[in-house]
C-alpha cells in the first residue's frame, strides 16, 4: 500500500518511500564518515603517535554503531510517525530513540513552507515546515501531492481564522495619512 493511511484516531501515516529517502540520506553521510576513517587510517599515524590504535578502534566502534543505527532507524521512524491536522491544531508524533509529540495550534501558525531536497525530489517527497513566532515544526517525507494538500489546508485554516477576525463594520482602512 503506497498511499498514506488514515487511522481511526485521525492520525495519518507516512508513505513507505520515506524509508528509502532516509536510507539514501544516511548512506551519503556514511560514505563521508568512511572517507574520514580511511583518511585517519592512512595519514594520521604520525600525527596521533601512541594514540593511533585507540583512535582507530574508537572510529571502528563509531562506524559499527552508526551502521546498526542506519539499518534500524528508518523502519522505526516510519512505524512511529503519525501526524494529524484538525480544525484547530497540527499534531505530530515521531522519533526513533526519543519520541516527540508536537502540538501547534493553527492560531499560532505564521507561515507554511514546502521544501524538497535533491533526494526527496528524486522520490517525489517533500517536507512541510510550519513556522510560529516561537519556532518551527515540520511534517516530513510527505508525497508531493499530499504536501501540497497539507499546505493548502493549513493556509485555508489560517486564512479563514484571519477573515473571521476582520472587523465587519467599516473601520478606517490603513493607508497613507491624509488619504
Amino acid at each position, binding site marked *: 500500500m503506497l498511499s498514506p493511511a488514515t487511522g481511526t484516531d485521525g492520525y495519518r501515516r507516512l508513505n513507505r518511500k520515506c524509508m528509502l529517502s532516509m536510507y539514501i540520506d544516511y548512506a551519503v553521510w556514511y560514505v563521508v564518515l568512511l572517507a574520514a576513517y580511511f583518511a585517519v587510517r592512512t595519514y594520521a599515524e604520525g600525527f596521533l603517535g601512541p594514540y593511533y590504535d585507540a583512535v582507530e578502534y574508537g572510529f571502528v566502534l563509531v562506524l559499527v554503531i552508526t551502521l546498526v543505527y542506519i539499518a534500524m532507524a528508518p523502519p522505526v521512524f516510519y512505524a512511529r510517525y503519525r501526524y494529524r491536522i484538525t480544525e484547530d491544531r497540527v499534531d505530530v508524533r515521531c522519533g526513533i530513540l526519543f519520541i516527540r509529540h508536537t502540538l501547534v495550534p493553527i492560531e499560532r501558525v505564521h507561515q507554511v513552507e514546502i521544501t524538497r531536497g535533491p533526494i526527496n525530489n528524486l522520490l517525489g517527497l517533500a517536507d512541510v515546515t510550519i513556522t*510560529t513566532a516561537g519556532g518551527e515544526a515540520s511534517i516530513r517525507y510527505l508525497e508531493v501531492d499530499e504536501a501540497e494538500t497539507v499546505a493548502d489546508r493549513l493556509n485555508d485554516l489560517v486564512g479563514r481564522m484571519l477573515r473571521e477576525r476582520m472587523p465587519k463594520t467599516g473601520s478606517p482602512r490603513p493607508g497613507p495619512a491624509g488619504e
Partner: protein
Amino acid sequence: MIDDCSIDTDAPARHGEKIRCHPSVIAERSLSAVVVLGVLVMQLGRGALPAVLAILFVGLVLFNYRQWNRTTVQFNETDVVVERNTLFKMKKTLPYAKMASVNVNRGVLNRVFGTSRLLVNINSGSGAMVPEAVLTFRQDVAEGIRAGMAERLYGHETVPEEEPAEPPVSFSPVDVIVHGLFSVSTYQTVFGFAFLAYSVVQLYVSTVTGAGADGKALVSLLMFFSIQLAPSVSLIFHYYNYRVYRRGDTIYLEHGLVRTYKTSFAVSRINAVRVKRTLAARLLHRSWIEVEVVGLASGSGESLRPVLCLLKDDATQQRLFRELVPEFVYDRSPERQPEGARRMLRIRAALASLALVLATAYPSIYVYRATADLAGTAGTVLPYALPLTTLLGALAIFYATHVSCRITEFDAGKDLFTFVNGAVDRETVVMNYDKVQTVQVARGPVSGLFGVARAEVYLLSSTGGTSISSGYFFENRLGAIGETMMERIASGEYDWRKNSI
C-alpha cells in the same frame, strides 16, 4: 524627492511632516572609522598611505552626510515611515499597531551633542535582536516623540522627567554592585576563579623558582577577566541608578551609568516571568526577576531581557513581583517529579558517571605510569589526581541529580503554569498559556521505561524564539499544557487582540 528646505531637525514632529535625524549622527557614524584608520596609520603609516586613508575618511564623512541628508522620518496617524533616498533606496513603514516598544537611550556622544537615541521595536521574533529603527534627535525632541508614541501604544503619556513616579522599591548602588557580582552564573564564576587560581599558582611558582612569569599566567588572568570580572563590571555599569515602576498597564525601567536607558513596555507584551537565583544569591537569600518581552532590542548587543528587580532579598523580590506583574501571580500547587522520574534520573546519573569513568580510564593509567616514579609531593599526588577528579565528578553528578529531584517542580494553573528547574542556578519560570507558540512532549528510551516525559515550551522571547524545558513528569500531566492552551483558544478565553504579534 525630498524637499530639503522644508525639513527641520530640531522642531518637534508634527503628523505627516518629514523630519531628519540630528546631524550629530554623521559624527557618530564617522567616529568609529577614525579609530580604525588611526590604527592603520600608526601601523602602516609610510609613503602615501596616510594621505589615501585621509581621503577615504573624507569620503566616508561625505557618504554619511549624504545618508543623513537623504534620510527622513515621518510620523503619521497610523505609522512611522523611515525613508532613505540614496543609491540603495529604502522605505520602512512601522505601524503603531505592530510596535512592541519605543525606548530612549543616551551614550557618551549623545550627551556631548545633547541628543538621545529613539529605538523603535516591532513585536517580531525574526528581528528581535535589532531595533527596526534607531533615530537620533535632540534630547527634548526625542522625549516628546517618545511620549507621543507611548500614548498611542499604551494609551497614556509616559512619565515626564519633572514628574517622578514612586518606585515601589528603591535600589541603592550597593544593590547594583551585589547584582553585578552575584548574578553571573555559578558555572561562569567557577571557571573564572579556576583561571584566577591557575594564574596565581603560575605566578607563585615563577616567583619561587626565579624564572619570569610565562604567557600561561597572563592568558589565565585574561580569561578570568573576560569570564568573571568583565560581565560583573558591565552589569554594574548597565544597571547603575536602576529604577522600576508601573503606571497603568505599562512598566518603566530607567538605568545606566555611561549609556542611560529608558525602557517601557506594556504588561500584555510579557510572555514569561523568570525568578532567578544563582548559588551565591541563594546563600545570600536573594533573587532577581527577569521578563521575556519581545521587541526591546537596543542594537548594541547588550542583554535584551529586561530586569524587573535586581538581586534583592527574597521578600522584597516577591513584593515587587506582586506589585509589578500581578498578572503572573496565582495560587500555586506545585507537584514534584514522580518516583519514576527519580529512578530514571538516578539511572541517567549512573550512566553519565560510567561514561566519565570510561573516558578517563585510559588517561588515568597513562598519567599514573608517567608520574608514579616522580619524587616528593608530585610523585604522591599526581598519579592519583585524575582518578580522584573522576570520583569527584561522579559524586557531583549524583549530588546534582539528588538536588534536581528535590527542587524540580511543575504547576499547571488555570491561566498560568510554572516550571522550576536548576540544581545549581535555580530558575522559576511562570508562563501564560496564551503566549505559548508550540508544545513538545518528548520521552527518551530510559524515561519511557518509567512512563515519564519532558515538555519543551516554545515562546517568543527577547532574543527571538526560546524554549523552556520542564523536569520529568507523567506524560498526561505535561500534555495538559497543550490541551489547556487549545481549550482556551476554543472557549474564547484566549483573546487574540491582546496577544497579537
